[in-house]
């Protein structure tokens, strides 16, 4: 069984982790096109490359980010999400045209 290094708990069996999908930037849901939204929701890259993914260490409920090569399945590094997400995210009000 594969092992992964959790930034909080150290090297653990992969069975302790839950995959949370790729880290993706959400387009503005209130202004993007339908296509851009569908791309965000339904499509993932499937090439041989390094992907940045969410992983959860289930016993401690800790989410972190891992960079993994999809060809070798090697996990190159793992780190706390605050490295990528360090400021409060706000959402703009929806466009109200046609909703009068």
């Amino acid at each position, binding site marked *: 069984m594969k092992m992964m290094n959790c930034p909080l708990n150290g090297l*653990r069996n992969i069975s302790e982790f839950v995959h949370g999908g790729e880290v993706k930037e959400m387009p503005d849901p209130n202004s993007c096109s339908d296509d851009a939204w569908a791309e965000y929701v339904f499509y993932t890259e499937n090439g041989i490359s390094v992907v940045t993914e969410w992983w959860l*260490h*289930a016993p401690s409920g800790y989410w972190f980010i891992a960079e993994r090569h999809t060809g070798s399945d090697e996990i190159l590094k793992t780190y706390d999400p605050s490295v990528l997400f360090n400021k409060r995210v706000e959402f703009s009000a929806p466009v109200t045209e046609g909703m009068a």
Partner: protein
Amino acid sequence: MSDVMKSTITPETYLVRSPLYRLHKAAGAHFDECSSAAQVTSYGDRSAVSTALIDLSVNHRFGVRGPNALAALAAAGLSVPDKPNQCVNSSNGETVLRLSNTECWVLGAMESGACSADSSAFADCYPVYCQDSHACLLLSGEHLPDIMAKLCGVDLSEHAFPKGAIAQTSVARINAIISHLPDREGTHFVILCDSAAAEYLWGCLLDAMGEFGGQAAGLDYLF
């Protein structure tokens, strides 16, 4: 307390009950009052037992988290570990478990079962209801790494998991927090698990201990 008094204490007398009290009762255990509940004092003669499993679920514990948690505990006079996944004893006998950069749990002193405060005393922290969400078991004695290796994929031998270390991991396929108690002679693992799964894990641990002659015990095993 006299023996006559002891035998009259039954867990159902109290509003607060351990999720495991029926197992203790069925095994003929003796109880004493602790934190307004019945704590097992004795499971019969365990003087020759190399490894014991003790239910500390009714002992007091609380958790706090948030950006102020570590500082608040320190200000209250508790010792706080330097790094996550470590535990230290405070001078009042309470053990502080640091589970992350912003979360600590405090276990009441083992003999009295009491804590000097509660999470409600820390107004600028978020409470964690570990008294109810988790059962608290103590595995004490010899062969602990071998016993745990039958249930858990983390190396808990002395060199990899010294006194004061914590492992948040999977034990017998449920999540658990294993703490190697510091400052105490012998090897003692406190195992905190989902209180709803306490009966399940109790059975798994007794089964794993059987090979080494381990048995359930009461607090008198320690004192």
